[in-house]
């Protein structure tokens, strides 16, 4: 038994990496998978807060790497999902506290005991990003339908392509506003996929439920929660049709799509 190691990254900050990591981990755990998340954003720890386990941190990733504790001691068990764990980032150190080789060492120690290891990458293209992708079997690139997020995603794709290992990449398009896409005032899913030439694994609608969920440290709320559950199932090898983000489409719009209009 050996885990699949999946790194969630984006280049740009604030596009939803941590939310994606937290929600995917919960969705995979609810499929009875054994899951551990690693917060690789050393110095800007947040995955603990979004997952709702911030009050139970004793040791962190840097403690593990610097041998102040055993790996197991730094793993926080989620209360709702018994097979879900988090290894938090250190808050008072920086990215240089961990090396890519040390990340690989930690990941290899986790592999035999889990189905999935999800690594939440920091924003940027420097050391923190390199640490986060060092041990990855797969990479999920999170972007928003917005020029700067897509450009940064392209840079990340370029960097991973230029690396010595071929790491498969898939795209998550987060914070889609179907209404704006329909009005032509937002990049569509097709536009983003076309520009980046990376296969999408999921499309997540902009959803207030996500903010409400992270306010409370709860996961998988609302329509976005449903989108994350679908992504988890696709990661698990299931064929799941993409969400129809066009929930309020009328007959005329459906006819338009039928005739090849590029519906939202």
């Amino acid at each position, binding site marked *: 038994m050996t885990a699949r190691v999946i790194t969630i990254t984006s280049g740009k900050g604030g596009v939803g990496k941590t939310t994606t990591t937290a929600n995917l981990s919960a969705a995979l755990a609810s499929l009875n998978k054994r899951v551990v998340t690693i917060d690789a954003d050393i110095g800007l720890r947040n995955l603990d807060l979004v997952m709702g386990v911030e009050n139970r941190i004793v040791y962190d990733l840097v403690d593990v790497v610097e041998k102040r504790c055993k790996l197991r001691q730094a793993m926080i068990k989620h209360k709702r999902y018994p097979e879900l764990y988090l290894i938090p980032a250190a808050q008072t150190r920086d990215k240089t506290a961990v090396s890519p080789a040390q990340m690989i060492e930690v990941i290899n120690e986790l592999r035999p005991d889990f189905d999935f290891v999800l690594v939440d990458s920091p924003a940027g293209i420097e050391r923190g990003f390199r640490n986060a992708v060092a041990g990855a079997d797969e990479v999920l690139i999170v972007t928003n339908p*917005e*020029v700067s997020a*897509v*450009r940064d995603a*392209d*840079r990340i*794709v*370029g960097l991973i*392509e230029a690396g010595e290992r071929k790491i498969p990449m898939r795209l998550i398009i987060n914070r889609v506003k179907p209404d*704006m*896409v*329909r*009005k*032509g*005032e*937002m*990049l*569509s899913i097709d*536009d983003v996929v*076309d*520009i980046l*030439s990376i296969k999408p694994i999921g499309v997540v609608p902009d959803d207030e439920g996500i903010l409400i969920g992270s306010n409370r440290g709860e996961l998988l709320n609302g329509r976005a929660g449903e989108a994350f559950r679908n992504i988890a199932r696709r990661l698990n090898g299931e064929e799941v049709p993409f969400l129809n983000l066009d929930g309020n489409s009328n007959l*005329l*719009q459906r*006819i*338009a799509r039928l*005739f*090849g*209009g590029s519906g939202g």
Partner: protein
Amino acid sequence: MSSLFDRLLGRRNNGSGTAAKQRLQLVLVTDRSDLSPEKLQAMKDEIVAVISKYVNIARDKVEINVEQRQRDNWLVADIPLIKDKDRPLSTGLEDA
């Protein structure tokens, strides 16, 4: 091109989404190839000058662009030649 249905629905091709896509496609040529618009222009001028030494070309119809094919960059050139009878063969040096 927007279809009749698109127009009926008020979906406009000149919405800011189209501008976003076009601007991204242009800037990514530079990002991916490390070839700035100035460098590309300088290269085009040199290519045209070199080719003109050997054959007559319709300079105003030359198109040399970086195209994206999936995630690969291709330098694609369309350089129409002018038949001898259209214009006497130049040495290429006088106007290079």
